């Protein structure tokens, strides 16, 4: 009978990946910024507010404007790092979270963009969007609301 724990099967490679990431480009890893459109009036956000928006628990920014999160491509290291750092969720946990949300009909995961550039471009275009990119990818079109060290 196959009663293997999903968590355990997925957990081991994930931790290895995280460790490798941290070792390979440590400086780069800490350079992660949460951005909104430069036209957005939204000010600085706290990490828990960012996590709530991305986990579909807070549909609006603190000022009342609608907030639509935008994820990096599934499997992107930046995405995994973001969720670990901001929401404290590893990829399997995140998957389990969204599985339940979707199954019970309580929400859908954020939309995805292929890379940081695409994220930046779409965020810049739409003041409702909120995304995250490498710090190095910042430009004037967007405005960071949270820098994750």
């Amino acid at each position: 009978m196959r009663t293997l724990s999903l968590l355990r099967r997925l957990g081991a490679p994930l931790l290895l990946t995280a460790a490798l990431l941290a070792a390979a480009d440590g400086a780069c890893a800490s350079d992660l910024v949460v951005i909104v459109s430069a036209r957005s009036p939204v000010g600085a956000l706290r990490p828990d507010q960012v996590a709530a928006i991305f986990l579909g628990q807070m549909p609006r920014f603190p000022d009342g404007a609608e907030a639509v999160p935008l994820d990096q491509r599934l499997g992107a290291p930046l995405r995994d790092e973001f969720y670990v750092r901001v929401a404290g969720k590893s990829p399997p946990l995140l998957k389990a979270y969204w599985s339940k949300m979707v199954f019970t009909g309580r929400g859908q995961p954020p939309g995805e963009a292929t890379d940081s550039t695409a994220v930046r471009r779409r965020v810049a275009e739409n003041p409702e969007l909120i995304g995250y990119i490498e710090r190095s990818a910042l430009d004037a079109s967007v405005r960071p609301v949270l820098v994750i060290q």
Partner: protein
Amino acid sequence: MTTHPTRPGTAVGARFGRWLSRALETHISLPLFALLPLIAIWVVTFHFIDAERRTATAAARDAAHEQVDTYEAQMVRNLTAIDQTLKVLKYAVETNGARGAVPALRRQGLLPPSLVFVVAIVDRDGNIVAGNQAMPHLNVADQAYFTAPRDHGGATPFVSRTLGDAFKAEPHLHFTRRIEDPAGGFAGVAMVSVDPAYFTSAYERSREGDLGLLGLVGDDGVARALRVGDKVSWGQRVALDGLADDTVIRLAVAADGVERYTGVRRLHGFPLAAVIGLAESEQMAQFEQHRANYLAGALAASALLIGVVAMISAWSWQLAKARRRERRAQATYAAASEASLDAIFVLRCLYDAQGAVVNFLLEATNSRAAHMTGIAVEDMRGRTLGELLPFYRVNGMYDELLKVVAEGIPIETEWQAATFPATGRWLQRQIVPVEGGAVATVRDITERKVIEERIRHMAHHDELTGLPNRSLIRDRLDQAVRNAQRNGNHLALAFVDLDGFKLVNDGLGHNAGDELLKVVGSRMQACLRRNDTLGRLGGDEFVILLPDVADNPLALTPVLEKIRQAVTEPVLIGDQAVQVSCSMGVVTYPRDGEDPKTLMMNADAAMYRAKDLGSNNFQFYTREMNASVEEKLMLLEGLRKALDATVAGEDRGGVDPDAPAGHFHLLYQPKIDLRTGRIFGVEALIRWHHPEHGLVAPPRFIGLAEESGLIVGIGEWVVRSACRQAQAWRDAGLDALTVSVNVSARQFEERRLVERVEGALKDSGLPPSSLELEVTESLLMRDLSQAVERMRELKAMGVSLSIDDFGTGYSSLSALKSFPISTLKIDKSFVRDLASSTDDQAIALAVISLGHRLHLRVIAEGVETEEQREFLRQNECDEMQGYLFSPPVAPERITTMLQAQSRDRGQRFKLVG
């Protein structure tokens, strides 16, 4: 005919009644009644538990029902969404081609989230051509999820089993739908792959618990996803065959064997069923908790009830036991008291307002008490002592009761009843305190009193005469002396000794003696005043106590004389008249002694004085009498020493001719034949020279020797010495002599007399015929038959016997003839006045005549004058002895006389100075 028809009935009734009364006792009835609440407690408890269980079960079923509803709805929605995606894919492929379909859908936002769903398109050859993620280059033409839609098509999507494969390493389910080309031919497969955990992600611990079950099971009975707690599994067979939709039953569906309330819903349009299971243990946990609480509560209540009932029962049982014991004790007491020979009164104190005891209530008595008081037991109970037995107020019992109640110390009293019906009876009461009263026990001790009185009388009175005995006399004397001392009175005490009583007693027998004592006693009693005491000390000795007399002893003379005369009156015993006299010694207090002891001693001395003075008189005590007693004691001591010394001296060797002071020695008085004038014999006479008092006269010490028993030893010595001396003369070739020895009464009574005489003869060598024993007349009369016997033995031995002092006693002449004697001796009292007194002459003549008639020789002693000798010789008296011829002399002198006699043989003898 009915004979005792009620009998069995009453027996049964009685038994039933007894049984009922026992059952009604608290310690039995209470536990029985306590069973009811006990049963009620448990009935209610189990009822509640049952209701609770039913409620809990219903709740669990409802929950399972509700949850399976929810789960079904969620499942249907998701499956529909997945099918929708498949249909959209199919449409997109059919519209845009396999390559363009996915991007087109993505653009339209029609793709499901890639995080949860993997979307893929497989071409007609089984190659994966597109997907919402990077797809591996794979051919799945051999897979069931490809072949099934290809071969069968169908309206419903195909659902694979859960598996990990080349497409995706992680386990997943493939949902596929056939894609057709415009011609309706097989064009490929649209596929959505989902993690099985997705379908069970609705599991909520708060709802399903730790052991709840959530699952998706295919129509083939194989689980696609099954979650229990946190664990998700798949692939196992789940038997849902018997399970109808819309029902919840308790079932162990999963392999873990846990019983669950299980609900199943077959999902319309899919070959799947949604399963939910709620673990019974968890659903019923609260109920179990409540049940435990109920049971604990019921147990506690039961224990409390049992405890309380047990306590009350035990207490009640103890009480019943105590009551029973008390009843038994009461019954025992009643039986014992009823059986008692004593009257028993149980009394309770009655108090007045001040708390002082004023009367006693009779609580219980026995039949003996009824007998003693003459009042029935029932009439006594509940009445007071005061009204019932008023005389108890005056006979001391009432006061004693008060004292006993007050002090708590028992009192015992004896009294003589003065009221009917016990009048005159001696009673003894014992009053013992008890709580709140007293118990009086009354015993009739009349019998004991009578016996005691008799014993006391016996102890204080002489059995024969009924007169006070020595101890009572002593008591009375003590008392009289005390009274006299206190009042300054005088009292007199007389000792009375009968003269000649021994003669009567020995001669006529003890009965005669007793009779004599009784008569004499009553005669003396008749002479006395009422408060005088006459007592008998024992034998023939009486004592008279005159407690109140005049100072002058002479005033006593009349009464003493009266007594003396009363005693001397002849007494008729049987048909024989006996006459005795008495000697009395009289003392008075305080003249002759200050205390009873001295008085008695002195009275005794005075009495002996009277005896010494020839009996039949009374003597007042004088101080000299005591001296004579002392002298007597001194003489007695001297006698003892003298005997020892004499015997010891002889043992050393032969006769000491000059007997030294302190020794006995013998003198010999010649006996003369009146016809020939020759010495034919001698009488041995003992002499004692006391070392301090000089020569002691024989009458003084012989009596003493007889009293003390020394006479036996002395007598033997005399016989031996006399025999030895006689043999010495024979050996010297002198004329043969007969030696006479006096034998006292005491000696004659001695058993070994004959032996001793025989021994003396043998030792000395003297022929028995040369020895003559002289016995006194009174001696023979003491025990006639024994005396005759003894005399016959001596006679047979060859020894001669003579009667000494003939005529002084009361010799029975008839007895005389039976005596084996050879000689009569005329007493010197008759010889003394022979010349002048015709009476004495008559007696002497009679004795001589009597002797000759009986063929006895007659000898006169104490011949001192020629006239006497002449009278005797003329009247044919055979022999004589006396001072006229010779006083008692030493043996040497006899030797000389004999020698002279043989020289002058043939010549007429002359008187020797």
